[in-house]
């Protein structure tokens, strides 16, 4: 039972100017692969880069879509949709992707990552 839950820290990732609305980028944040998306002028999202259906690190290459007023992320195959906010797969309650808090500080994108203690 010797599992500690670690400490969450904000990690600087990249210049906010590198993000383009609708196009994801991958980032390596403290060993974790994270997909960053800008979905609007002031909307940023950070999710796990791993596509749980294919097992590949490709969510950053997925497509940002809007459906019923919700902004969703489609896997690169386009077959599955995930809610940016919760990471929940829209059609499959058993599957989620990780989501991370993200913010912009002094023009830099920062992601909050839990570092194993």
């Amino acid at each position: 039972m010797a599992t500690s839950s670690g400490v969450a820290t904000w990690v600087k990732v990249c210049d906010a100017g590198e993000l383009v609305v609708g196009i994801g980028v991958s980032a390596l944040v403290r060993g974790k692969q994270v997909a960053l998306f800008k979905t609007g002028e002031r909307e940023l999202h950070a999710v796990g880069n791993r596509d749980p259906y294919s097992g590949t690190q490709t969510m950053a290459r997925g497509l940002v879509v809007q459906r019923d007023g919700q902004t969703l992320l489609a896997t690169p195959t386009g077959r599955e949709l995930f809610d940016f906010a919760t990471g929940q797969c829209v059609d499959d309650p058993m599957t989620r992707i990780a989501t991370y808090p993200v913010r912009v500080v002094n023009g830099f994108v920062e992601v909050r990552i839990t570092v194993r203690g």
Partner: protein
Amino acid sequence: MNQDPKHPLPNVSDMDTETARKRLVVIGAGMVAHRLVEALVERGATDEWTIDVFGEESRPPYDRVALTSFFSDRDPDDLVLGDGSLWTVDGVRLHRGVQATGIDREARTVSARGRTYPYDALVLATGSYAMVPPIDGKDTPGCFVYRTVDDVAELRAYVNELAARLDRPVRGAVVGGGLLGLEAAGALQALGAESTVIEFAPWLMPMQVDEAGGRTLRRIIEQLGVQVRTATATAKVRPNRRGTVGSMEFADGGGSIDVDVVVFATGVRPRDELAREIGLSIGERGGVACDDACITDDPSIYAIGEVAHIAGRTWGLVGPGYTMAEVVADRLLGGDATFTSGDLSTKLKLLGVDVASFGDAFAGTEGSLEVVYADPVGGVYKKLVMSDDAKTLLGGILVGDAEAYASLRPMVGSELGSDPTAWLVPDGVTPIGGVSLPDEASVCSCNNVTAGAIRCAVRGEGTAEPCHDLGSVKGCTKAGTSCGSCLPLVKKLLDEELTAAGIETSNALCEHFATSRAQLFDIVRVTGIRTFSELVATHGTGRGCDICRPVVASILASLETGHVLDGEAAALQDTNDHVMANMQKDGTYSVVPRIPGGEVTPEGLIAIGQVAADFGLYTKITGGQRIDLFGARIDQLPAIWKQLIDAGFESGHAYGKSLRTVKSCVGSTWCRYGVQDSVGLAIALELRYRGLRSPHKIKLGVSGCARECAEARGKDVGVIATDKGWNVYVGGNGGFTPRHAQLFAEDLTTEELVAVIDRFLLYYVRTADRLQRTAAWLETIEGGIDHVRSVVIDDSLGIVADLDAAMAVHVDKYEDEWAATLADPDKLKKFTSFVNSPDTPDPDLVYVDERGQRRPATPQERATLIAGTTLEVRS
């Protein structure tokens, strides 16, 4: 949340000062407890109540249903429910790693870690524990249960450590072939271990599926490499010389097998010990007895989730648990909600296999009839349980293909209205003739919305105005707003009701555009709009989706409006167009240089071979007479293309909805039978139409004589040489539904032929639906092939001059997308592995050698290869 772990307890006197508020204590911090607190906070209960939650696990509540994903996601913190802000709300406290050890009903206190916490209301949400059968050796190191994140973490560490030590795959066994057992087997597989599932019952998942369904399931998962033994009881686990698990023995002469790891997944028991201690009534097979308000014998004590015995049983699914949490939240705020029965229908994906079970799945109703469809080869088993007159649906089981689940589950208790077998055949989600769901049938079980409520909303009864699209139906009725599995059915009801009301159901592209693709094409062409944002602002709504964005990108590209990655267009492309390569199963890409007509020089072959050798790419000859190079990382694409372009190659558009190849036979140049120069024509056609963006891929073929060695009649446009010139055939394809192309025009000169193909292709590009090949287009377009012939050859619509001019623009403006990309530093930016570490390649890619080339490692190979270098160190 940043409590010192050594002093996690709140000061008791702090709680006493909060006399103005009533005190709620929740014992247990699982998913159902989380939902309870969430529901209370959402409804503002913290004005009246303080909430103290005690959880013995060190983590905040997490998603136990997704436990298996922890094997792949690797980080348990990713499973945590919510963003943690719930536990910082004023008046809410989560005591992590603190076990409540006693309850004093007289004093109304809970004791934990030697302190007492007073309560006005107490909720027991202690869940279940994993039950281990009392067999010899069950505590041998290497035996595990499968219940918590820590269980899973320990199992993973153990297997990884073994994998690193042994020079053979780790052998795992799972005792229990139910839902959890199959999940555990999947987890072992994901870790690269061999797994054997041992089930006592005669078939797998005996609680959810019948024998035939279990057999089908077995066949599918055996094909996935999992061994299965049914009707087998485990007698003992034997240690090896190191004292860890070495083998297991079966009862009744069932023999034994060598194993390294045993996972027990033989069921759960409610954790009702606290309730027993204080004398609360307990259900027959465990669980704290409650009434329909989730209240136990003691009116100030509630029980929810798996520990509650309610409506005659305990409920082992999260759905009913959530309902109980909502009931108690309502009661604590003075409401009168009740829990009457939970829906035990389930639809799951186990090891990638769909399994669904609903209603009276085992045909327990007297006189019930079973309608079965089984395809053992395809791995599909479906059964509907019908009433004795074969009219009313009572329940069902779906294995291997559960697509009909969303439509069928709400029909339970209703007349199916058509031949039930129509629901079972492949693609049988919508039976011929249609069905009418009775008004009282529940369509959305999450939010309890009936078919009648949806119909009323569409008709505008009781709503501000009639709901004529899916969005407003969802908004008005809340149907489909939780899990969303019923949305296909909601859409169907909406369409039926609109048709009945005489309102035309549209051929709208998607919710953002009310027009069809063909209409949209005309709008773009006529208005001169050249950006998606302008188009959606003037002729659509919202910001677009995965349907309309690539369609508009394709339309814009067909109209020769510039590079596919220019400005805004880049965000419209789907992933393959986006990086101009084809994504493969491991997330890397394949690269296909164009080889027009399949003709290539020795120097060209050597250059391609050199690229493959330099970048370690797997090479294969394609069906389209060119060479596919596999395994290119996204960050390698520009360098690969630099080398290819320097050698005279250009993009083959293998990724695009556009011309792929023009296949040819060697023709009159070499062949003794050839009557025309098929290679020369194929090259000319391929160079003419390369890069033409279209509703779907386009393939052409040219044969030099009637022997048809180029298989031209299997192409969208096929050309076959005659003594007098060329015959042209259209509308052929291979693939899922093969079609032979039909004769379109005969004995054309080369010049006439090119004009016919020009116009045919452009008319198709302008009028077809999205993802419609030429064959399907010819079938759906009014007048069929004769109409198209009259447009193309007789100019019946007077658009030939326009089509010819458009093709001239295409030919004139063509430029190689890859050469243009390499010349533009802005476009090259996206070809990096990581935005913050561009020199680090994706560390997750693993390859093995096979027949002299490399290929992606299988999951088993991965586990061994990765575990060898990055063994987890346990603290």
